[in-house]
């Protein structure tokens, strides 16, 4: 160990209390960064990671049952196909294990060749009879392990050979159908000989960038194959996005903002630490140390302190966020980052240490540039400008505020750090509120109806006549594909009435459609297709028919990541009369939803509540809630630390003033009031600034990062603001009590000598 390192370590150990405090601050910020990195990286890359691991095909074609030979002949003839595999998907199969059961099981009969799923535990199907591979969501939910027994169909008992994930859909129970895989060879004895048909084709393209060509050719040669639908890898990503995309995007964006805040805090903490040590800098300069030498010494100390603190903080952050983010990923059939997170964490570690070192070296460099005599006089504030000061009002509290504002630069830095943290907390609360609204309130998406019911269009009048129903309308929904760019799928929604009666997405460009040949498209679809008002939208329907519309306007819609188009049903029904609508039901104010549901039941339909962008799955939302709680807890610690740091620094710098007050008879409460005045000023300014920053900067930035195709509001409610104000007030009290307690234990004479 070199002499410089030994000396730096000795200095750190000589002031254990302060070293510990500074280390805790670095660790708190590092924990925040660790949490943000784990969440952000894990969620942003979860799909690609799982898709690569599962060897997800570039395109999946679904169709009504066909002979394998017939299908394979056509697929083999397609251009740009590197490999292909086939499955028979049997839906509605009863599954049971360990006392649990589902009537909606999806059994995938797989054949030899590439699988399109990844085994995460156990082994793949060997072809022997009696084996089954279950999806991880099902295994978790039903507590199935390798070797467990699963009953499929009516009495067939299969042993779980392996557990798999495939990100072509969200996991059970987020997806309503639990999915299992059995080998074709193994199933034949169970279901009889009639399993030769297939209804799913998996296609791996030789050049995924040219998948368009393959799909166009597939459409052209798909004649005679009923109900042919394609979904591409991008389409699957969109499918998942419907379940949680907006949530993940918001969390990732939030993580980025949290990262920025933590870096600001680190820099301010390191700077504050140098301010404390001005006298030692003066001594070093007086002893002949060069300016660069002083700066380097401080940088070395900072590195020695920051390295373990950053490692600890990152580890804590990862530990806090890993479990909930893994659960979230699991529910989406995605994989946690595992060791691929390591380079990111190493980069974070290096970044934190570098920021602390630089933020320490720079003020040390500046301080060392001052006259040593001036620095030796210590960190007491320069006298205020002018010869008059405002009147002292309010006693100790006002004095505390006055002491805190004596150094406007320091006050501004502390307020900035705290405001950054508070703005993140406000953002988090607004985010939580938005998630709740997304879950429960279809109005967030601009929807003006609360229920749908699978009924023919002619039932609209009957539904309208139900008590509690304000209005009802047929709503046609078709999953279409752009005829020119077959990889781009979108949702075509049509109402016979004025669109504004049922959907109110904010208009971004152009106008809403007026005639039957016009369409308003979501900003997500407009971006994907490069379409603007005046362009033509050629929609390829699942039946193979094509409908062309003129784009009248672009709207900011959240549904389906903005890949939607709103039109009139006339052209759709003309192209495909078999399209069945649902009835959209708008409830009257104060209507009894259950009574309306019963009325719909009498008409022969089940009332489906209209959700929003997230799933109604309670477990999924519980995971999200725990994620937000983790981030909130870390952020609360950061706020507390920033306050303690600011007050400790104030108490240290104004040690003599506080000692004089105590010598004059100020008791512990009065000293605490002085510190409380300083804390109150800082907290009041920071809370105001934090709320303004969230509303003016963070909220808009996060929503823009997350979904620039939609109009989302991350405005905190009054309740959230109250929580923030009370929370910061409580933190200020806690910080004041802690610092005042420490100060009270210090002998008064120690402060009086400090001149």
């Amino acid at each position, binding site marked *: 160990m070199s002499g410089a390192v030994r000396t730096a370590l000795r200095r750190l150990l000589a002031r254990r209390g302060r070293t510990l405090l500074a280390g805790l601050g670095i660790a708190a910020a590092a924990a925040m960064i660790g949490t943000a990195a784990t969440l952000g990286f894990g969620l942003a890359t979860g799909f690609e990671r799982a898709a690569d691991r599962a060897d997800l095909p570039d395109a999946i074609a679904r169709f009504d049952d066909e002979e394998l030979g017939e299908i394979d002949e056509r697929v083999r003839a397609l251009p740009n196909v590197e490999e292909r595999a086939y499955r028979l998907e049997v839906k509605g199969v009863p599954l049971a294990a360990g006392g649990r059961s589902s009537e909606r099981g999806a059994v995938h009969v797989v054949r030899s060749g590439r699988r399109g799923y990844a085994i995460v535990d156990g082994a793949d199907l060997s072809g022997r009879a009696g084996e089954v591979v279950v999806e991880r969501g099902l295994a978790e939910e039903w507590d199935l392990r390798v070797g467990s027994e699963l009953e499929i169909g009516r009495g067939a008992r299969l042993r779980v050979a392996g557990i798999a994930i495939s990100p072509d859909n969200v996991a059970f129970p987020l997806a309503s159908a639990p999915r299992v895989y059995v080998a074709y060879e193994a199933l034949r004895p169970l279901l009889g000989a009639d399993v030769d048909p297939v209804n799913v084709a998996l296609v791996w393209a030789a050049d995924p960038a040219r998948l368009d060509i393959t799909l166009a050719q597939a459409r052209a040669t798909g004649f005679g194959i009923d109900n042919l639908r394609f979904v591409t890898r991008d389409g699957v990503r969109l499918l998942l996005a419907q379940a949680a995309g907006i949530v993940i995007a918001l969390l990732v964006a939030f993580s980025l903002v949290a990262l920025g805040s933590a870096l600001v805090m680190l820099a301010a903490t390191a700077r504050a630490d140098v301010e404390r040590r001005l006298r030692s800098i003066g001594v070093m300069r007086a002893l002949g140390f060069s300016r660069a030498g002083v700066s380097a010494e401080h940088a070395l100390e900072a590195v020695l302190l920051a390295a373990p603190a950053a490692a600890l903080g990152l580890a804590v952050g990862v530990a806090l966020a890993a479990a909930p983010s893994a659960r979230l990923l699991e529910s989406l059939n995605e994989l946690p980052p595992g060791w691929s997170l390591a380079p990111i964490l190493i980069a974070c570690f290096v970044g934190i240490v570098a920021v602390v070192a630089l933020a320490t070296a720079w003020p040390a460099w500046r301080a060392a540039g001052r006259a040593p005599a001036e620095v030796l006089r210590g960190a*007491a*504030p320069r*006298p*205020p400008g*002018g*010869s*008059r*000061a405002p*009147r*002292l009002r309010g*006693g*100790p509290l006002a*004095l505390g505020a*006055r*002491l805190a504002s*004596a150094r406007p630069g320091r006050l501004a830095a502390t307020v900035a750090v705290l405001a950054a943290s508070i703005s993140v907390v406000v953002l988090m609360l607004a985010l939580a509120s938005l998630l709740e609204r997304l879950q429960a309130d279809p109005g967030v998406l601009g929807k003006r109806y609360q229920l749908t019911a699978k009924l023919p269009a002619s039932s609209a009048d009957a539904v309208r006549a139900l008590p509690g129903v304000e209005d009802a309308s047929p709503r046609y929904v078709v999953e279409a594909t752009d005829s020119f760019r077959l990889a781009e799928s979108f949702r075509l929604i049509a109402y016979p009435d004025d669109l504004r009666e049922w959907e109110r997405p904010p208009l971004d460009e152009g106008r809403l459609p007026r005639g039957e040949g016009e369409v308003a498209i979501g900003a997500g679809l407009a971006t994907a297709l490069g379409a603007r008002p005046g362009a033509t939208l050629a929609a390829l329907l699942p039946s193979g028919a094509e409908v062309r519309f003129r784009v009248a306007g672009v709207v900011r819609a959240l549904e389906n990541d903005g890949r939607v188009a709103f039109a009139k049903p006339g052209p759709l029904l003309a192209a495909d009369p078999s399209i069945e609508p649902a009835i959209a039901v708008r409830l009257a104010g104060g209507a009894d939803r259950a009574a309306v549901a019963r009325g719909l039941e009498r008409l022969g339909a089940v009332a489906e509540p209209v959700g929003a962008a997230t799933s109604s799955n309670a477990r999924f939302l519980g995971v999200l809630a725990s994620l937000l709680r983790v981030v909130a807890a870390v952020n609360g610690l950061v706020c507390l630390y920033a306050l303690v740091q600011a007050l400790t620094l104030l108490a240290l710098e104004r040690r*003599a*003033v506080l*000692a*004089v*007050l*105590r*010598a*004059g*008879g*100020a*008791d*512990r409460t*009065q000293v605490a009031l002085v510190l409380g005045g300083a804390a109150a000023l800082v907290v009041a300014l920071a809370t105001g600034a934090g709320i303004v920053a969230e509303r003016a900067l963070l909220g808009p930035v996060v929503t823009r990062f997350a979904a620039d195709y939609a109009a989302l509001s991350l405005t905190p409610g009054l309740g959230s603001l109250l929580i923030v104000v009370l929370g910061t007030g409580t933190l200020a009290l806690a910080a004041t009590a802690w610092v005042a307690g420490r100060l*009270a234990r210090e*002998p*008064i*004479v120690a402060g*009086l000598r400090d*001149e």
Partner: protein
Amino acid sequence: MVNVVTASGLVKTFGTGRAARRVLDGAAIEVAAGEVVAVHGRSGSGKSTLLHLLGGLDRAEAGRIEVGGLRVDGAKERTLDELRRHHVGFVFQFFHLIPELTGAENLLLPARLLNGDGKGSPERVRALIERLGLEGAAERLPHTLSGGEQQRFAIARALVGDPAVVLADEPTGNLDSEAARTVLGLLGGLREHGPAVVLVTHEREAARIADRVLHLREGRLVP
């Protein structure tokens, strides 16, 4: 005359092991109301420590202290707060005025700590400012005042609570000779208004204003 300060058998040691140094070793002092006592001693002899013990800023290892009728040794912190608030006034070498507050506000602050019991009223503050001839400087910030003016404000601050004794620790140590004379004159003049003064100094000049001069030698106070 009634004694406002009575202390005996005071012991105080700094450091531990071989570095331990007993600066007070059985020191005793009595100060009557209105009396000015100067304590001389070389640097590091324990003069300031004696004042700190008398004023309840530090605790003795042994000995008995009574100030203004309050028992100081072994007293709880709350009692010591009470002592410092109502019975003792401190004057420091480095003035220790709060730089953000004007001279008058520096006097008002302890007045606020006294919770309006009459002793620290604004009227009293105004009277002290007039008595010490500080009217012209009352609204100025400390850094615009001369050393002598700052120390006069510090003396006024010590008097706000109408203490039984003023403990002055090297009050002229940071002043030029003219300002020092003025400050010593002020401290000497306090006897006319009631409080006793214990003046710690190593300046022989201070002896002229004192009723008694004590020397701190080998941890004990001797005439």
